């Protein structure tokens, strides 16, 4: 069997390519949106850290609203039409326990994904969101399949 190309997706980055890839990333309160087009058999993924770009500084895909728009644009540039796209959404855990409403970055990251995907009428066909654990996910860009593992707490605290 042919080995697939690997890509490690860093926070605040996004990835979409013509060639099939296995994309890995690790999520805490960050959210990753995977878009897949069953017609072109191509997929793309982002990994954003904060929900909204405040309009100051660089409009970086660190922010959900930027990262989602950019990913859709990238998929269209790769030959998809928006109506064919399907989404899978992961992450947004509250990894650190906090009661301060402002700090609930995970929740706010999730909300922006659901909101924006709804606005673009892109169906969410699978999701694993929230909770208290981090996630490691692996996205196969040519099948749209996503594998997920939870990261147990002791792993975090051991470092």
């Amino acid at each position: 069997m042919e080995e697939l190309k690997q890509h490690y997706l860093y926070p605040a980055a996004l990835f979409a390519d013509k060639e099939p890839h296995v994309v890995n990333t690790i999520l805490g309160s960050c959210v990753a949106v995977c878009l897949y087009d069953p017609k072109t058999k191509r997929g793309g993924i982002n990994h954003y850290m904060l929900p909204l770009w405040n309009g100051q500084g660089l409009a970086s895909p660190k922010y959900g609203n930027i990262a989602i728009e950019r990913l859709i644009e990238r998929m269209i540039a790769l030959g998809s039409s928006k109506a064919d796209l399907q989404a899978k959404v992961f992450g947004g855990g509250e990894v650190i326990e906090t009661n301060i409403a402002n700090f609930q970055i995970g929740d706010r990251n999730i909300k922006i994904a659901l909101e924006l995907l709804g606005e673009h009428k892109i169906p969410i066909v699978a999701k694993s969101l929230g909770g208290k654990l981090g996630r490691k996910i692996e996205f196969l860009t040519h099948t749209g399949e996503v594998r997920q593992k939870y990261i147990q707490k002791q792993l975090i605290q051991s470092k």
Partner: protein
Amino acid sequence: MSEHLTDDELIQELKRRFEQNKKSLKELKELNNELKVVNKKLEESEALKTHFISNITNEIINPFTSIIGLSKAILSVDKENWKKVISMVALIHSEAFNLDFQLRNIFVAAKIEAGDIYPEILRVDVQNLLESVIESFKFELRKKKMNIQFNLNGDSGNNQLATFKTDPEKLKLIIANLLSNAINFSFEGGVIEIDARIKDSVLSIKVRDHGIGISKENQKIIFDRFKRVDSGINSLNRGHGLGLSINKAIIDMLNGYIDIESELGKGACFTINIPESEEPIEGFATDANEMFFDSDSEVF
């Protein structure tokens, strides 16, 4: 005057103004379109830049990591006829190590420039981190027959040094920059003292060398970009003058500060002070990176 205008004149005037408005509206639209094109180009160049940085980071740093690892492995082979090979490999290792280190600095500088840098906070074992940085300079130290004295003064009771919340990659780079400078500006056989302590949730690390030192005037400019003090001992120097300016930028980002005490000819002592981060912990240390997907993984 307007009272004297006839209805006809009034209509003419209104028509004229209407035409004018239409014309300016058209011009505005054209300008807007031009702006759209420029905007698109800017967006493209920004995407290109982001792409370039993430690409180059992977494609250059990864090979270097393996070069360093491999040559290090060969270095530990202990046979007599390997002596020549070993000396060559030592050189490769040292060069690759330096390139790797300089490149990391350049990438961080580029990110600082682009405003695209943010702390990635983890729980950090400071002693471990310092030891690994010192270990990575082992061959550089051996080359100049230098020694390191390493002092830890944590509150051993609550073991704060083992679980300090900060950005480990940035802290490593800061220490590596200080250590690299200390080695470069020291004389052969010199000693470098490193002292780390935590007091009131502030991590303070001192790196002291007994090298050529820095004059009072030069102390004012060493944190500026690309400036390197002309010290006269050329063979001792290398680097691009980015290290300290990068350190300052990163330390600012981590809400800390950096101090220098030095006198020409009497060595230099840099102290960094970094408060423990209160930011949420984002991401995970290497353990999670080493996790594999198996039959237990959920599939979506």
